[in-house]
């Protein structure tokens, strides 16, 4: 359940891939919780962060792909960098449904409307 609109927007930029550090887990769980609490949420997957959109199957362990699907289902906007996906042979057919492939202009749009930006990188 999503609570009443808080009137604020959070954008999360994730540049690290899944299963290499906790960044993907913390970033996507934060996005999910923020959406549940009624904030508008944008997630931009950049560099190796785009791999999170490639996790489509169930796992017996932490599953950032599943959490990303929950975010989309709750109304978060999730976009993956066009060039970063192309470089990794990711395309609409092999990423999670609902993840938009967009350029950095999409990121700029997200940033312009944001009250807060969290960047998980490095």
């Amino acid at each position, binding site marked *: 359940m999503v609570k009443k609109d808080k009137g604020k927007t*959070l954008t999360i930029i994730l540049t690290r891939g899944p299963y290499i*550090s*906790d960044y993907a887990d913390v970033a996507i769980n934060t996005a999910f*919780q*923020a959406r549940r*609490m009624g*904030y508008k949420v944008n997630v931009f997957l950049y560099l190796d962060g785009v791999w999170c959109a490639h996790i489509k199957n169930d796992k017996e362990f932490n599953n950032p792909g599943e959490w990303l699907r929950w975010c989309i289902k709750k109304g978060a906007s999730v976009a993956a960098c066009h060039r970063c996906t192309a470089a990794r042979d990711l395309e609409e057919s092999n990423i999670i449904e609902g993840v938009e492939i967009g350029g950095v202009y999409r990121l700029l749009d997200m940033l312009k409307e944001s*009250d*807060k930006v*969290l960047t998980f990188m490095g």
Partner: protein
Amino acid sequence: MPSKQAGEEGPRSFGVIIARTVSTTERPLDALRLAKAMRSQGRKVGIFLVADGVYIAKKGRTEVAGILSQMMADGVKVYVSPEHIKAAGYSIDRLIPGIEIAEETYRDLVTFVMEEYEKVIIC
């Protein structure tokens, strides 16, 4: 104690989320030094430890434990994620005194970011 009032420029409050530990990178120490400088200018400062960042909340005669204790004495709030402490495999009685345990990690983290601190960085 803070030596100056918060300047008119820059954020009035500053939050730091630490998700890494000092054994793998200098970043947590750099972030703490920045937070300490912010506090010395009279700004409200908070620190939230998640993931591997919870390791720096352990008691001990380490540089980072000393910095955190001093910062808390200067009025900095330090929060720690209970689920990540559990995952790290140590008990809360090994936390540096004064550190507050979050009630619900991600709910409290979102409130920290969206409502409590004007600017928030992650390291």
